[in-house]
């Protein structure tokens, strides 16, 4: 009955040894400030970006608050002490001004994004997608801007938004994620570098997917981007985010903030394929991904949907959340989190039901292999005045091999007697019967595991936009193909 355990683990090792093809580094002339963090560094970052006084004040307030905090330790994670003074808080590919056209962009940089499969030349692009590419701390190039501008849509780097649409940035910055929210949110608010800014005006459906690719390149740096998306009344946008980083022996810190505001009857879909360098098979190196993502569904019948496929990072700590403040607002969270080798992930969501008749759906699929630890942590909260709310949560864990851990920590807080909140969770493994059935039909074990895992994750994958879904499926197969349970 028992398959030889060593065998199983051998196959597992083979498979989970799947290669990380984004691990190259690029030789790009980088403007990087010295390691360490103090008020002068915060001022320097602000000055380098030519920011207005109010933004510098915002940063300094956040920095001073950050000094009073200690890193959170409640997650099911083993986070080594991070020396925040050993990190450089600003690195930017050198150029005098932001590139006005493609000709001004460093060819090495273009090559980098080409290798990542993200051509920045607009004619080469999928016509249905506009891209903002962020290397280290700075937005490199945003495509299709003019076309979007015709509709009144703003899609640009955060720094440009500060210059060109200061009133919008000022109105919304920090309104969903306060700098006081948590340790990493405070840090980000003090030193954030760049990111994307999206504004969809009233009644406009964004005709193409907006997409940002984040890339950490320089060593010894952290990446602290900030994304702000505003969908005004009756607007719609689908936003995609992809992340990669070179293979380095050191751990790199990524502490981002994403804020989303959804007004009356507007809808935002936010999809992430997170594939930061996860460290090697022995757990050396990799990105620490400590991210605060939150959306405020402020308008009535507004809708926010998070979809994430998490395969990268040495440690992931993130809980994309929905604050459902408008009557009838909807929040959704669909997640596939894969961990292997020595990766650790503590991820999930918060659904805060503040208004009546708000609904939320959570589907989380965890897949653990190797020596990894994979946790779902989620909060569903129904406020006293929020009557008629509904939540459905489903958390499934799949374990591949006997050295990994899969954990579920849901918090359910119901303060209204008309709420219906349901939570179901299961833990399973790929059955030998399924593997043998596939084998008998000629499908080798490695491929069978990829097939079965993709089937297991299908509910979430189906929520991704088409272009991303294909990439995400391939990623899952590469990451896990051949693992045997």
């Amino acid at each position: 009955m028992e398959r030889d355990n060593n065998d199983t683990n051998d196959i597992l090792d083979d498979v989970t040894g799947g290669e990380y093809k984004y691990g190259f580094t690029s030789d790009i002339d980088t403007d990087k400030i010295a390691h360490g963090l103090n008020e002068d560094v915060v001022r320097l970052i602000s000055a380098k970006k030519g920011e207005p006084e109010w933004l510098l004040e915002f940063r300094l307030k956040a920095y001073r608050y950050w000094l009073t905090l200690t890193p959170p330790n409640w997650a099911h994670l083993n986070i080594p002490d991070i020396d925040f003074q050993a990190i450089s808080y600003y690195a930017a590919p050198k150029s005098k001004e932001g590139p006005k056209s493609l000709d001004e962009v460093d060819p090495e940089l273009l090559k980098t994004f080409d290798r990542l499969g993200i051509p920045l030349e607009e004619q080469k692009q999928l016509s249905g997608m506009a891209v903002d590419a962020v290397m280290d701390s700075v937005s490199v190039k945003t495509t299709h801007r003019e076309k979007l501008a015709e509709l009144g849509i703003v899609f640009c780097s955060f720094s440009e938004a500060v210059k060109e649409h200061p009133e919008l940035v000022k109105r919304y910055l920090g309104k969903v994620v306060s700098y006081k929210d948590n340790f990493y949110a405070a840090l980000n608010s003090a030193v954030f570098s760049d990111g994307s800014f999206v504004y969809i005006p009233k009644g406009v459906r964004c005709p193409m997917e907006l997409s940002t690719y984040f890339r950490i390149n320089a060593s010894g740096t952290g990446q602290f981007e900030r994304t702000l998306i505003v969908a005004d009344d009756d607007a719609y946008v689908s936003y995609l985010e992809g992340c990669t980083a070179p293979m380095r022996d050191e751990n790199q810190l990524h502490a981002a903030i994403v804020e989303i505001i959804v007004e009356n009857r507007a809808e935002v879909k936010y999809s992430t394929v997170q594939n930061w360098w996860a460290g090697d098979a022995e757990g050396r190196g990799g990105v620490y991904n400590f991210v605060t993502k939150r959306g405020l569904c402020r308008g009535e019948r507004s809708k926010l949907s998070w979809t994430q496929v998490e395969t990268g990072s040495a440690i992931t700590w993130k809980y994309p959340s929905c604050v459902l403040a408008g009557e009838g607002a909807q929040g959704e969270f669909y997640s596939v989190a894969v961990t292997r080798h020595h990766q650790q992930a503590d991820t999930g969501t918060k659904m805060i039901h503040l208004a009546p008749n708000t609904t939320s759906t959570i589907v989380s699929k965890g897949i653990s292999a190797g020596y990894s630890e994979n946790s779902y942590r989620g909060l569903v909260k129904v406020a006293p005045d929020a009557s008629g709310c509904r939540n459905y949560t489903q958390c499934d864990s799949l374990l591949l091999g006997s050295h990994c851990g899969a954990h579920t920590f849901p918090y359910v807080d119901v303060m209204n007697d008309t709420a219906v909140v349901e939570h179901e969770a299961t833990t399973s493994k790929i059955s030998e019967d399924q593997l043998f059935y596939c084998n008998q039909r000629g499908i080798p074990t490695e491929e069978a595991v990829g097939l079965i895992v993709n089937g297991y994750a299908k509910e979430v994958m189906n929520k991704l936009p088409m272009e991303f879904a294909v990439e995400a499926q391939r990623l899952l197969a590469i990451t896990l193909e051949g693992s045997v349970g």
Partner: protein
Amino acid sequence: MGALKQYIDLYMSQREAIDAGSADVMNTLRPVALKALEGRELPDRGVEGFEKTSIDEMFAPDYGMNIGRLALPCDVAAAFKCGVPNVSSLLAVVVNDRFVPTATLLKNVPAGVRVMSLADAARQYPDEVARHYGSAASLESAGTALNTLLAQDGIYIHVDRNIKVERPIQIVTLTSTPVPMLTTRRILIVAEEGASLSVLTCDHSMSRDTAALTSQVVEIIAGERSRIDLCDIEETHDTQSRYNQTYVIQHAESNVAIGGMTLQNGTTRNEYRVNIAGRGCECHLGGMAIGSGHQHIDNSSDVKHCAPHSTSHQLFKYVLDDESHGAFEGSIEVTPEAPFTEAYQSDRNILASRGARMHTKPQLLIYNDDVKCSHGATTGQLDDKALFYMQSRGIPRDEARMMLMQAFMAEVVDTVRVEAVRDRLRHLVERRLAGYEAHCSDCKA
């Protein structure tokens, strides 16, 4: 914060009196407990695992303790009527922490079985008690360490190898005090290899107008192939607080069923920590909470599988009315040493009024891939459609609501495996939901 200090100070000034009123076996653990409390605090609300209940607050009032072991006035005879009808149980009464056997108990305890005062047992059978006392309870819990520091007496139940106790053992615990008081009680239940027994504890208070707190640590040691049933029914008053910590160690092929039923109370925190140490065990954990007024009921369970081929089932249900608050935190943990585990947990709650609150946190911690585990939690209301259907058949709305609540709780009642106890509980639940005080009809407590 800082409620712990007054008790440590009390201990430091009264250690000789405390020791004198107890037994050596219990006294030897006090310094160990004191050391474990160094630099500690009782958990406050919001600490992971104590989201909604502050133990610190519970212990904060300036309670007295009966260290000198004065016999407090108590109408014990009234409590003796709290028998299980139609079953001759082995009945004992515990007033605060003082064990009072009944004549029938003394007459009917079978050979190889001890049901007695813990302190007496510790004096008469020191080796036997020392082997088990403190072996399951964890001093990592500040509450347990404090209990170990202060406990002078309690209950000792021991069943020898292969002895099956046919009659249920019933213990009525009474809080009786004219002044606000902390009772520190200890219960130790040991089933040796192949033994079997069933215990029913009924927790009452005879001092309805006096605030009182009970700290109770229960240790259950289930030997190989033993079978233990424990049903704990709390029926006290809104003036009463209770911090009850139950620790279970299950050896190979043992079978343990524990039910914690809170029918009436003030503030209660129950913890169940089950360590499945041997292979092939079966564990059932059932919990019920019926809340009205300002009752606060917090159950926390942790079933840890450390050996292969065991199964565990947890079922907790709450019905919360008025301004009552419920909290449930439960976890299933499967270690790498426990393949072929089957573990299930279910938490179902009904909020019956606008002011009621429920917090749940069911957790899975799985470190083994050859397991079947699941948990589910729901919080909702009584089924409107069913209510309407019943009304349309002429059943008044209130009665229909009550029937639906009883039906909802029936699943937990059914987890009690001893028939007489199950019937008793069903009766109590029906009365409680019908709005009566959930006391046995002829019990004055």
